[in-house]
């Protein structure tokens, strides 16, 4: 039996913070508090440990080691004092999967209508995986995909089904 198209790994240990603010007014303050540059539209910036993703014109998602979450929320809240903004912990609302291997993109292409050829190296795509919301971006050797916690088992199932050995998309 051939290998699965990608290795599917459920990941723990991430903290996630939703930041809503006027990114033009508060971008610098957020960047300094988060320790990362503000990403361009549909992009994600990363320093290897933390990542900051563009979610909408007034929303960012900070992903960081779980232990740093409290301090990051405090820093962001402090930095945005006096501004109209919302900083909330969404760490527990999410499920995270890493898809790695030479055909990881095939797994995404079976589940999401996003065009991966059009996803730059630092692109973050909010989309869906089959019937549930998901977002993904590139990591070393594949993709990281986040979805809602309540659908974690469904995501795990459909990701593994899509990675069925021998089912790569290349023409045969």
């Amino acid at each position, binding site marked *: 039996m051939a290998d699965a198209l990608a290795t599917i790994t459920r990941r723990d240990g991430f903290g996630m913070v*939703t930041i809503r603010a006027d990114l033009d007014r508060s971008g610098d303050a957020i960047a300094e508090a988060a320790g990362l540059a503000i990403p361009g539209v549909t992009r994600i910036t990363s320093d290897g440990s933390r990542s900051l993703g563009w979610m909408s014109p*007034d929303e960012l998602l900070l992903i960081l080691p779980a232990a740093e979450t409290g301090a990051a929320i405090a820093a962001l809240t402090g930095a945005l004092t006096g501004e109209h*903004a*919302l900083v909330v*912990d969404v760490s527990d*609302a999410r499920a995270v999967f890493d898809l790695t291997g030479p055909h990881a993109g095939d797994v995404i*292409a079976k589940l999401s209508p996003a*065009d991966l050829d059009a996803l730059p190296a630092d692109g973050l795509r909010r989309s869906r995986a089959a019937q549930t919301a998901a977002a993904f971006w590139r990591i070393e050797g594949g993709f990281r995909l986040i979805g809602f916690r309540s659908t974690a088992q469904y995501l795990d199932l459909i990701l593994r*089904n899509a990675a069925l050995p021998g089912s790569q998309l290349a023409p*045969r």
Partner: protein
Amino acid sequence: MTHTPSFRLARGGRLIDRARQIPFRFDGRHLRGLQGDTLASALLANGQMMMGRSFKYHRPRGPLASGAEEPNALFGLGQGGRFEPNQRATTTALLSGMVMQSQNCWPSLDADIGAVNGWLSPMFPAGFYYKTFIHPRAFWKHLFEPVIRHSAGLGRAPSDPDPDRYEQAYAHTETVVVGGGIAGLTAAREAARAGGRVLVLEQGPVWGGRTPVDHRDGQARIEALLADLGARPNVTLRRNCMATGLYDHGYLLAREALADHDPDQGIPRQRLWRIRARQVVTATGALERPLSFAMNDVPGVMLASAVRDFILDYGVAPGRRLVVVTNNDDAYRTALIAQEAGLEVAAIIDARPRAGGDLAQAARAANIPVLTGTGIARVRGGRHVEGVIHCDQSGEGRPTGAIDCDVVAMSGGWSPVVHLYSHCGGKLIWDEAEAMFRPDPARPPLGADGQGNVTATGAANGDLRCAGDLERAEDATMPVWCMPQNAPYKLRSKMWLDFQNDVKVSDVQLAAREGYASVEHTKRYTTLGMATDQGKLSNINGLAVLSEALSQPIPQTGTTTFRPPYTPLTLATIAADARGDAFQPLRRTPIHDWHARNGAAWEPVGQWRRPYSYPRAGEDRHAAVNREILAVRKGVGTLDASTLGKIVVRGPDAGRFLDMLYTNMMSTLPVGKCRYGLMCSENGFLMDDGVVARLTEDSWLCHTTTGGAERIHGHMEDWLQCEWWDWQVYTANLTEQYAQIAVAGPKARALLERLPGSIDLSQQALPFMQWAEGEVAGIPARIYRISFSGELSYEIAVPAGRGLDLWERLHEAGHDMGITPYGTEAMHVMRAEKGFIMIGDETDGTIIPQDLGLGWAISKKKADYIGKRAQSRSFMTDRARWQLVGLESLDGRVIPDGAYAVDAGSNANGQRKMQGRVTSSYHSPTLDRPIAMALVRHGPERMGQVLDFPLPSGEVMQGRICDPVFYDREGGRLNG
């Protein structure tokens, strides 16, 4: 027939591997085919021309075509869950050990009893069913329909679940080319040179289309193109991939066969591609048309192109002695190829007065007799062609001679495959010269920018001569819709148009005489083109016959609508992975697994599963509900309320935003307090409810119903983004961030005080409708003193990842108190005992808060809120609107939920008048009697009156109107 010598030719067959024999069984006979054979070619090689029986008359039928358009040679393939009806023998690869069933015959293909329908065929003209089975009325339901249903349908449905896997995949491309023939590959090369991604789809396993068969240098030309394309990194060539439908904005569906030939290899059997293309090129070729002459359905009458396909592709002779009948030059190829392969070509019957093209000259040079101005009056033979009787094409069918033969290769010209072009709005034009509909380049399907996004090319565009110079010298095709031209009824009633549905020239003419002028109506009346082949061969011939019958030009008649899929698509491929556990996302709370371990009986709530109750050994789910309720009322229970929507709303304008969303005031709510609120739609109808907590000076947390979380969040964002875009408000849906546990019952406080914590739970520190933040059992928590049960109740929100921990700590700590998990049904009953409404029970999208006695939750001070204006309209303020009341059953039985209270008299439609209906109805274990809530006209003014509720059984139950609050009217239990 059993011991017929092989019809496999000694030479030729570009698709077969003569070294690899494949044994298979057909109708009890052991046969042999070759690797590369289709089922049809393998059967023909064994002399088995008869492959099925027709649907209506059960006439013997052989293959007509060699490809996807085949109407006759259909089999049920596979067994059990892998059984598939109506599989075309011409496109099904022969497999070792194949199991197949003949269709439309009983007891066997050879001796079929239903063929008696054929002898009775004069009794089954077009519209027979419509005319015959009308009276008496009751006979339709009880006699005619069951009998027709039993005998109707091509093939039968499988009875077992499909054991195979299927999947979907998305593709994006600048250009998708449908069709891997000479035109498609050439168009792909042009597109690839221009840049951008190019995807080429070929429906079959072999590239090249007709070119390798029809041109001596064809194979080389195809291979050169494939080599060129294969070297281009921007080109993807995908075989076995049938484009089934084209939809708006360049959205193309295609089915890739991955393991049809070997479903046991563990990969998906088929894959449905969902392709977005900027430009679609249809290079789908053309289909050869049959000719309408009497007995044109006898096995052995085939399309001329199919005859040469079987010879050249599979090295199979469909017969020994051939007659070609045609109205064009192309069919002469079949004669030449057949002769070269060693078959005897008895004659070419050409309906045209003259045949002087290169191919005709070549035929004459090869000593093949050519009879011009001639047609076939009738085919001789029943189960197999024995010969033809020919006549003058321009006459009425008087015989001019007879020719013995066992194959008739017919060609009525070619029709471009315009299906994809037509699926999403491309228009066709009538091409007089070639007698065909072809895509109108001036009216293509349009993309989002209003520009055409589909181009037809090659034969699919009507360029039947795209493959080479030879065709350029061909003589013109002469339209022939009836052979001979003035055939009498006796002949026309044996000329098949639609071979699958047994529709003949005479049926379409009858329809025209009966007043069917529209081609769409004629189609449905006669069933022309309504079988699984969707009229691929019959459509043009049928509408041409209709046009002649109506004495109008063909373009005026027009075509029927081309609809996807091009060839049938199995439902399993459409469902793909969405079956079994992956059918739908099943949302699980952080405490889901505990519920499962503790015997939860589940209730689906949206995509969530919530425990309905937790039956113990010896209990059914209802007994468990009663036990759970009493446990909460007398002690303490826990409910997993994690599914409740939790939306944070923050900003300088958040207060006034919430004042607009809710019917009551939220801006005045003090920090630290909670308030119950109602949300209405613009039309005034109640759409959600829940408790709002004010977190800080500028932030609120809004609880919604379980089903309302995403919907209400979307509702908020809709108003913020589209209407009040200048208001400074941010929202975030935190539903999944928190696990929420309701701890309810008189012992709730005592239980919580056993857990280490930093929050003062006393009545003074945390009174009803307040919240506090701190730690419970070492877990960061927010506790809300809110109650849906009427008992002392704390709802504790903790980070979702800690929810199970808290739940288990509560159950450890409360073990000796008899702590009891309770489910949604206990929650429902307890709220009904308290007279609390439930969205979806007391509301159904037509109910306003005023109907439910919730006027107290509607602010009179506010200038506006969503729904306010609607609620002031006359029919909303009508005092005769049904109002919420309680109901007491008179005989101690539960009145069924949804039962209607009848009123005196009847309405204008003769229906009994109604004056109310039951919205919730339960047995209350707390009160040990039935309780119900109902909406009743003038209800609150009618306390004590008795209403009649007739049941479907005819029995009438009675209920007395009462106050909807059945339990603890004073509310003393809220504080323990």
